[in-house]
């Protein structure tokens, strides 16, 4: 490298994101879904998140315009996992602003490559496991007399988990850049996903057992009259108590797999409840 070139590079200071930009983006990433739409889903939301970085990195109007358009393309993922993608994209945009050869297509390809797996990984963990388990705890606290402690604990626990996780994901993505994709190959994602599914499904069994109630009044009485003995009546009664919730839940799973809308199933159960109550079977 000759002297002239060296001077040239030295005089051009690299553009870096400021700490405040990083926090602004962190804050904005929590309102990503505000403009969720049926055409390009979270696209405007992602552009909104990137806006502070684009302002910082691209003083040149034509580059700025290109960057805005780049991030208005189709985007959809699990909202909380989006922080990892945001971090990676921030690092790529920063490199690009400093002259690295990164095309629009490369940035979009990385976003697209990450959003599918992150969606398939994040939704079952956050919405399928953590939220149901935390809110079931909270509801059980309320119904066993702890009152407002339930909602408060739910709010605090969820939001601490969410904010800490988001912050570390954004920071990790920013520091490692597109290399983070190598993480997908180490099996860590598979292991975390496996463990969460097992835990989530186990808890689902627990919660169904404790929460789904089908209260028959007269069947046990009917059974004991029929058999003339208390033992068989009790046995029938308790086995119905055990089986009814799980059978009902499995019927609902079957209906949902048959594409019946959950609301129709709920309506059906209301009608079943009214009929059962008026016939004196349910109480």
């Amino acid at each position, binding site marked *: 490298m000759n002297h002239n070139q060296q001077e040239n590079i030295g005089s051009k200071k690299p553009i870096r994101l400021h700490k405040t930009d990083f926090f602004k983006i962190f804050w904005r990433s*929590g*309102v990503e879904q*505000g*403009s969720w*739409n*049926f055409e390009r889903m979270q696209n*405007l939301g992602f*552009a909104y998140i990137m*806006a502070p970085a684009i302002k910082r990195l691209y003083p040149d109007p034509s580059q700025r315009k290109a960057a*805005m*358009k780049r991030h*208005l393309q189709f985007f959809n993922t699990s*909202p909380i996992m989006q922080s990892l993608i945001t971090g990676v994209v921030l690092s790529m945009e920063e490199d690009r602003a400093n002259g690295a050869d990164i095309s629009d297509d490369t940035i979009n390809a990385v976003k697209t490559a990450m959003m599918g797996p992150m969606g*398939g990984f994040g*939704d*079952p963990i956050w*919405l399928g496991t953590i*939220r*149901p388990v935390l*809110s079931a705890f909270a*509801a059980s606290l309320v119904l066993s007399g702890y*009152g*407002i402690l339930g*909602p408060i604990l*739910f*709010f605090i626990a969820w939001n601490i988990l969410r904010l800490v996780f988001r912050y570390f994901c954004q920071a990790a993505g920013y520091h490692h850049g597109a290399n983070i994709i190598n993480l997908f*190959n180490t*099996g860590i*994602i*598979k292991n975390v*996903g*496996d*463990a969460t*599914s097992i*835990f989530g*499904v*186990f808890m*689902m*069994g*627990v*919660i169904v*057992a404790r*929460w*789904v109630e089908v*209260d028959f009044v007269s069947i046990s009485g009917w059974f004991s009259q029929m058999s003339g003995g208390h033992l068989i009546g009790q046995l029938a009664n308790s086995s119905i108590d055990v089986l009814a919730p*799980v059978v009902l*839940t499995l019927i*609902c*799973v079957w209906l949902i797999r048959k594409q019946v809308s*959950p*609301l129709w199933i*709920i*309506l059906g*159960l*209301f009608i079943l*409840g*009214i009929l*059962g109550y*008026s016939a004196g079977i*349910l109480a």
Partner: protein
Amino acid sequence: MSVVSIILILLVAFVVGMDGILDEWQVYQPIIACTLVGIAVGNATAGIILGATLQMITIGWINIGASVAPDIALPSVISALLVCGPAALSIKHGIALAIPFAVIGQLLNIWIRKLTVKLVHDADQAAQNNQISRVDRLHLISLGIQGLRVLIPTILVMLISPQYIHQLMQQVPMLITNGIAVSVGMVSAVGFANLINMMVSKLLWIWFAIGFVIAIFTQINLFVLAACGLVVAIGFVWLKNKRHGASGDSGSDDDMDSFDKELDDL
């Protein structure tokens, strides 16, 4: 209702509506939304209990990918308003009313998600003209419209005389009210079924069965069960990996394959 109560309810409705689309703070989940409305009206206890009951019904209502589940935000606010407020409905009535409002909220949500496409086209134009702050504004306007989605119906319900609503619900035969109360315990099955449908692949049913059997035949506390479940789940995956790792290096490809399969299952 006092002016302060009214302002607080409107504020809660707007925030809950925005969080309903964001899915971030979870303020829109019934257990929090109903509590907030209860506090705003000065009847926190009823709000908390209604919230916990509704929570068990809505626990599995999840927006995955591009699907829009029945709404949670609107029914939470309106039911809580009618139960805790001057209409003083029973919790049974509040839950029964939550279902039609879940449908209304869902339809409004789908309509707004279509409407937002127009704002996104405006944002394309703004990007073309290099107006970043206009892009920002369009995003926030969309968010505000989602807030109005809950705020406006709430105002409409508040305009109806609470005495009238109370009388109307009193005229519903006891048979129907009690029948619906009976079905509340069953209705939570639908939400769980939705979750199970999403989470459970063939290999995982055994874990569902284990959880169910332990919970129904013992009195072990939910916290203890969760802690044990977590330890067992992590231990199981760790052991599986250890066995897998000992069998040879060829495992990594299989790992990715089964991960893909599992993603498909989910």
